[in-house]
């Protein structure tokens, strides 16, 4: 199995304080990889390294065979990496439609109509409020808009940081279904960060467990799901 994304010995810091140590990580092409771990473990930091917002202090970030560690974030989306950031980070003062169109900015909006139709198909309720300011959406609508915005970039690698946080179970099911569809129908490779470890390991093919900035476990999703250490440390809280 080839990896679309591979991290080798990645370290990262905010100023003086180091948050990631010697990270080896792979996202296999066409698969869903879950990244779990407790609060402050470094999941978001790792997503920021992959999307280019945080420069690693050491190690290599290989995407599609090339080391992109020095490629700035704004150039990565054009290469096929899109991030649904923690907290969604919609452009609050712009409308739903404007947010979605900005998602296609790196493609100069080429063929955006088709992508838009795809977003409406997954999230029909967004179409009715296309003109509404993103800052006034409900939590669920915001997450749909954020995932839709990332879809507009036609990513080969989709990074989703905290998909389910604070959302009703019915919404979470639909978002999960959308990710599965993007993965199956388009072959989009996905990395999913989740507080809900049960959910993450159910959707994913493989999983990584992060603890205080280090990878402490990784393997097939069902192996991790059955691992007593994972069950005890993370699922007790998640269930």
């Amino acid at each position, binding site marked *: 199995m080839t990896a679309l994304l591979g991290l080798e010995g990645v370290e990262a810091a905010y100023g003086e304080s180091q948050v990631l140590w010697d990270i080896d990580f792979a996202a296999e092409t066409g698969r869903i990889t879950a990244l779990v771990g407790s609060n402050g473990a470094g999941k978001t930091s790792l997503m920021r390294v992959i999307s280019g917002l945080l420069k690693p202090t050491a190690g290599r970030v290989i995407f599609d065979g090339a080391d992109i560690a020095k490629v700035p974030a704004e150039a990565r989306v*054009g290469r096929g990496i899109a991030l649904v950031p923690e907290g969604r980070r919609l452009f*609050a003062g712009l409308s739903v439609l404007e947010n979605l169109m900005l998602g296609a900015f790196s493609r100069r909006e080429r063929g955006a109509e088709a992508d838009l139709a795809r977003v409406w198909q997954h999230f029909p309720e967004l179409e009715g409020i296309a003109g509404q300011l993103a800052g006034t959406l409900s939590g669920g609508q915001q997450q749909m808009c954020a995932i839709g915005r990332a879809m507009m970039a036609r990513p080969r690698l989709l990074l989703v940081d905290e998909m389910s946080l604070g959302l009703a179970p019915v919404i979470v099911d639909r978002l999960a279904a959308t990710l599965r569809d993007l993965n199956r129908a388009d072959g989009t490779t996905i990395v999913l960060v989740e507080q809900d470890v049960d959910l993450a390991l159910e959707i994913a093919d493989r999983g990584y467990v992060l603890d205080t900035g280090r990878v402490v476990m990784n393997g097939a999703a069902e192996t991790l799901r059955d691992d007593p250490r994972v069950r005890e440390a993370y699922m007790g809280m998640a269930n």
Partner: protein
Amino acid sequence: MFLQTIVNGLLMGGVYGLATIGFSVVWGVMGIINLAHGAYVMIGAYVAYVLNQWLGLDPFLAMAGAMPVLFVIGYVLQVALLNPVMRTSLLLTLVVTFGIDLILIDTFVQIFSSDVRGVQTAYSGRSLALGPVLIPYVRLAAAVLSVAVATAAYLFLNRTRTGQAILATALDREAARLMGIVPERIYGLTGGLSAAVTGAAGCLASTLFPISPTLGLTFLGAVFVITVLGGIGSVPGVILAGFAYALVQAFASTYLGANYQEIVAFSMFLVVLIVRPQGLFGKRFYGEAAS
């Protein structure tokens, strides 16, 4: 008298509003309070003056020359001097833009001396009489063109891909980068376009005010007041506030005397600042940069 005062205010308001848009947008998008902004008005007025002297060009048509000149000045200053300091401290950007202002004013003193100049047109001094109210053609043209350029600026920000990228960067710089937007490029463009619009206002101002290297200083005060009244970064808010400011000035001038117009206008500013700090018309739009 009363009607004429209203007309006087309305005719000046457009130019004040147009002169403010660039300042307000730069503040909203980049968090820069550009003290050299008044100098852009001044340079625009001199471009109109020079083109008028050399080629006999109408000062309103001179906008076509002033806007590219000011775009280049605004772009270069932004990329070379302001991009490196804008994210360090507000104080530093104030010092740098103050320095730029001094250099620009001195340069124009060297070239043109401090002599006061004026631009004359064939229709200067002619007015349209509507009953008892006189509407000078020059002021009418300046007001109409101001609103036209302001509308174009508004449509650019809200209806074009580049305008959307500017707004997105203003709202969330990091999220904008995730879209593939290069912030430094957007800042250069914002600086250039803002200066260009201000240069257009300078051309209009050349028909209304005596031209000297310190023309900008008179404007900077008004620009500050109008920005705060209109809401930082809001183009429609700034235009409305420009009219409000000019109306207050006109009434103060008519009924209290010309010496009072600034005092009253600035008092209004202080009152608004205390009562409605988000501005009279502005909704809070911009995120991180403006705060």
